[in-house]
């Protein structure tokens, strides 16, 4: 049987890759995809702990996270479409309308 830390380590690596993607990419759609990577890393963690600690709570929270990710993707992509209509660009550096 694999140790729990193997799953946690994979999930940590995925989370860091996703965080890096949010920080360094300039395309807003790829930034949202990186957020999905981070949510998946959290899901792996939750399901692994749910298996090793013999509780169903982790799997249920992972299920709710998938639902939240669906909502986040829908709203984020709608915002991208609105911004793209005005600016013809999805570059995060050019989205500074709300910046003070």
């Amino acid at each position, binding site marked *: 049987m694999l140790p729990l830390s193997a799953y946690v380590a994979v999930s940590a690596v995925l989370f860091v890759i996703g*965080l890096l993607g949010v920080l360094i990419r300039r395309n807003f759609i790829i930034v949202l995809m990186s957020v999905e990577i981070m949510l998946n890393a959290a899901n792996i963690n939750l399901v692994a702990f749910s298996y090793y600690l013999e509780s169903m709570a982790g799997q*249920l929270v992972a299920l709710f996270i998938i639902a939240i990710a669906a909502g986040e993707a829908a709203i984020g992509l*709608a915002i991208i479409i609105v911004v793209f209509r005005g600016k013809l660009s999805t570059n995060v550096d050019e989205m500074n309308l709300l910046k003070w």
Partner: protein
Amino acid sequence: MIAVFFSYFALMSIAAAAMTVALKNPVHCGLALLALLLHVSGFFVLLNAEFLWAVQVIVYAGAILVLYLFVLMLLNLKTDERYFHSTFMYFLTPALLGSLYVIYLLLRSPFAGAKGNAPTVAILQDGDTAAIGIKMFSDYLLQFEIVGVFLLGAIIGAIVLAKTPKPHNLRKD
């Protein structure tokens, strides 16, 4: 045998995540994300979570990813020459060092904790789907309803945001 599958899924999902972040063409990034999602669903099979595996394939790979690819095709983006931030080199070394340190800490820790009341034998008796269903519609009913209302709000919000504005609503400038 589980170790072989685990290392395959781990290597492939990390490689796919790196490609999602690093590739130039956004459509290629979306396809790399698809590979990542499918390999993450492999972890769920290893962890006796068959229902989550199905949800991951149907909802994530089937619905969310198609939404991303749909918007990518709709917008018809040009590939930027500079697709990273100009300062991205400053992030790479700290990220590498930090993740190595976190992995070192994680591999050392024992992760003992209070066991719940759902051991593998009890889950496998009726299947994972039955176990999740009973738990969700008894202890987690309120959360389930909240997620339903949240999804309704997300649908309405997405429609309102993405609707084409009527001509008399346009700013006159």
